């Protein structure tokens, strides 16, 4: 038995979307169901992803229960990156518990001071009192990489500029050059303003269905996720070890190592692409973030699920692509990692 992605829907990414969370989510859900040619009644279970403190709401899935069609149905609410919700959704199907599962993630960076809020995710005894947040942690990780690699900052600037150029048409930020990136102010040295993906609002929904292995469409194959130790000092900072472990699990589940035509990493910072390529031992032939990835707009929590949607669209496109990989991450300096292989059948 296999798990097919029957539909994807997306709202955003948008800068400062004036709509409420249910309004944004409903748009994504309706699009995903429409694409899957399914009504709400065909959905057996729902998996949602949201984080209370980012939404400023207790049990923030309450806000979306109606618009995801979960009333009087099973809903699992995962507080992590949306790709983990998709992986959990695929487990519901693999377990034989449900045939059709809707997975929905939303994020609204315009709601609150995102980076400040992330300080509330850090160890309150040893890290939070120092005023640290995920941005500072990313700076420490990037510096550790740049310390042994004189060309790193130039390379990251080129990556950021390339992603921004690809995203300019549909993203929330204009294109810029590598020189612009290097000239932009440091936000957490060596990270510069323009080498970071712009924060945005949005939602992504996908429909997963039990399918025969040869059934035409895009299938969600091997999946893996992982949580590293919390303290940066207890990790190999210049690696995404957690992604390496998650990827090994995904390959084990998948059975074979597919030739990847496209990769959609959740890179909020240009330097993370180095870590991503390294952890997956990515072939140079794999196209990375053809649409600019998160540089079109980084929607917290929904980011990983939006990457999955991007891979599905690429595999369905006219290019005849066969396989791709979607990636999600959450926590300081990539503490949480998730990865999923998608294949066109």
């Amino acid at each position, binding site marked *: 038995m296999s798990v097919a992605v029957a539909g994807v829907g997306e709202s955003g990414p948008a800068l400062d*979307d*004036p*709509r*409420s*969370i*249910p*309004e944004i989510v*409903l748009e994504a859900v309706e699009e995903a169901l429409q694409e899957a040619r399914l*009504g*709400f*009644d065909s959905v057996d279970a729902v998996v949602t992803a949201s984080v209370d403190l980012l*939404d*400023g709401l207790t049990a923030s899935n309450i806000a979306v*229960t*109606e*618009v995801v*069609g*979960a*009333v*009087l149905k099973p809903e699992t609410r995962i507080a992590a990156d949306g790709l983990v919700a998709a992986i959990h959704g695929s487990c519901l199907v693999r377990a034989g518990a449900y045939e059709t599962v809707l997975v929905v993630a939303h994020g*609204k960076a*315009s*709601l*609150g*001071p995102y980076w*400040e*809020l992330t300080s*509330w995710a850090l160890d*309150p*005894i040893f890290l*939070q*009192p120092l005023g640290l947040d995920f941005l500072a942690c990313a700076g420490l990780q990037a510096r550790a990489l740049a310390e042994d690699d004189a060309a790193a900052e130039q390379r990251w600037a080129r990556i950021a500029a390339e992603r921004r150029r690809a995203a300019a048409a549909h993203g929330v930020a204009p294109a810029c050059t590598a020189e612009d990136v290097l000239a932009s102010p440091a936000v957490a040295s060596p990270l510069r303003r323009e080498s970071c993906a712009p924060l945005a609002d949005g939602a992504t929904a996908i429909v997963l269905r039990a399918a025969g292995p040869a059934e035409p469409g895009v299938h969600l194959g091997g999946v893996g996720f992982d949580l590293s130790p919390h303290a940066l000092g207890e990790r190999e900072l210049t690696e995404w070890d957690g992604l390496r472990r998650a990827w090994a699990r995904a390959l084990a589940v998948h059975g074979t190592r597919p030739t990847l035509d496209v990769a959609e990493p959740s890179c909020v910072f240009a330097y993370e692409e180095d870590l991503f390529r390294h952890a997956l031992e990515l072939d140079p032939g794999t196209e990375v973030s053809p649409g600019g990835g998160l540089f079109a707009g980084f929607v917290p929590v929904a980011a990983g699920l939006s990457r999955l949607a991007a891979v599905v669209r690429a595999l369905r496109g006219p290019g005849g692509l066969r396989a791709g990989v979607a990636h999600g991450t959450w926590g300081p300096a990539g503490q949480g990692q998730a990865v999923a292989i998608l294949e066109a059948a």
Partner: protein
Amino acid sequence: MRADPGTATPALSVVHEMRLTWRYASGTAMERFLAGLAERRIEALRCGGCGRRYLPPRPFCGRCRLRLSDWVPVRDEGTLDAWTVVHLPIVDARTGEPRPVPYGMGLIRLDGADTTLNHYLAEADPDRLAIGLRVRAVWREELRGALDDILHFEVVP
């Protein structure tokens, strides 16, 4: 030197005060509802499927899984559907202050709505409260377009 949990040494703790502000979007349905309150007008959204008239108005009926757009007027008078008299007050997250006790609370089914509104009651004597009592809104003098434009509900004599 050893450290074991449960030993007599009092453990230390770290204090953090959360002072955060979020910019919440109302959505168009709630925006219209709140604008109505500023003019002492209450409106509900009616579902074309089940016919339920929803308060608060929302974009979507979770039961019928249909979008909502049919506005219906609701009176500021209704029936007490449930009640209590609170002695342990909730702390208002906006101010950090508790409300003076005791105070009455009710679920009020306003005439013209099918869901109930939770709100304060002017009456705080348990012996004078009962399900089925008729109650009406007591409005603030200067309306601001928020749910506390209604100060509380009083029992209709």
